């Protein structure tokens, strides 16, 4: 049974479907929340998330279960952080929060989104990740990256293209895909 069917069943009151959804999705949701929150708070937010899933399942339209679930988790995390104070979320001291007027909860969650999306590129050392790191983080020209990686410039460009595609789909879908795509 796929996720969309499970959510539909949960919307009709099937608590066994909710349990299966939890079994499948709680681990990665917990891991992603864990990048911004301490363990005890992850537990609270995760509980509220799945209660939110139970309540909201009947209004779900099939368009990406992972993104929908992360959306609920995100909202609950934001609520939680606002209630408990922004110090809860692991923000670096230098974050210019006051200046930009952006909700610190949002910042924390965007960081979590990005961190998770990056895993779609694969572990450190995989071609797409290295290409991305050198080209975009370290801002080196293509020729230099080609020399560093020991591959032709065309290969660097196609790796960069793949990296962008992976990131885009990871950010849209909300859920990290299996890492290290070929």
């Amino acid at each position, binding site marked *: 049974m796929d996720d969309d069917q499970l959510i539909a069943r949960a919307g009709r009151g099937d*608590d066994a479907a*909710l*349990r299966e959804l*939890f*079994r*499948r999705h*709680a*681990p*990665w949701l*917990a*891991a*992603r*929340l*864990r*990048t911004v929150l301490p*363990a005890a708070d*992850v*537990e609270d937010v*995760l*509980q509220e998330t*799945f*209660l939110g899933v*139970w309540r909201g399942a009947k209004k779900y339209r099939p368009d990406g279960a992972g993104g929908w679930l992360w959306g609920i988790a995100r909202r609950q995390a934001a609520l939680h952080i606002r209630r408990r104070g922004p110090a809860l979320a692991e923000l670096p001291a230098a974050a210019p929060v006051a200046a930009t007027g952006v909700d610190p909860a949002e910042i924390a969650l965007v960081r979590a989104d990005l*961190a*998770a999306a990056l*895993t*779609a590129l*694969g572990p450190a050392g995989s071609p797409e990740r290295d290409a991305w790191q050198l080209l975009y983080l370290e801002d080196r020209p293509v020729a230099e990256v080609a020399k560093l990686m020991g591959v032709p410039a065309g290969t660097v460009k196609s790796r960069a293209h793949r990296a962008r595609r992976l990131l885009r789909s990871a950010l849209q879908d909300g859920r*990290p*895909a*299996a*890492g*290290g795509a070929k």
Partner: protein
Amino acid sequence: MNAYLPGPDRPGDAAWAADVDLERVWIGVAARVWRRDTGPVERLLGRLLRSPGLARALLATPSLLVPWLIASAAVFAAGAAATVGTGTPWVGLLAPAIAGAGIGYAYGPGVDPAYELSMSMAVSDRMVLLARVLAIFAIDTALGLGASAFSATAAGVAFGWLIPMTAVSGLALAVAVVTRSANVGVAAGTGLWAIAVLGGQAAAGHPAAAVSDRWLYLPYLAVAACCAALVLIRTAQPRRSA
């Protein structure tokens, strides 16, 4: 039992957050999703009786469930109408039978499939029995008085049936407990009451004799007392006899 807890599903997934207790989280979710809604009546009763368990046991009484209550009210209403129509005090004649049936079906191995287990509970089954008997008696008394007032019968009959009601209820309960069958208890209680009514009619010429004859009050109360004693002995805890 923890088959639902998976390890990392996919190699590329974000790192498994090992210090998050997912079991505890699921129990928190399940506790909310699986819980039964307690209505306001049950919560109020729980506070009044200072025991949520006793309140729940009371409201789960087979003869206090809504269909039964509606049926009892309907019988009383019919009795009131019949009294107005025929002049025979049907309410007084029916009340003991209805209470007897209600109390016979309130308690005991005949009606409770988990009777053995209930005898090992902190909220003792005797407490549950007492609460149920009082509740049914009170409800049937209220219904009966209401029906009597509506049909405006003579005062002797309007209240007099309370006494045979205790006797018939006691009898139904005692027989149900001794025979371990609610059906037998209720049949005995209502059957004997029917005989008493017919006997009263034959002896005194009018059917209300069983209810209004004051000489019968003492025997009725004696029967009620003996039955109560029998039930008390049978439900003594822990049990003296199997």
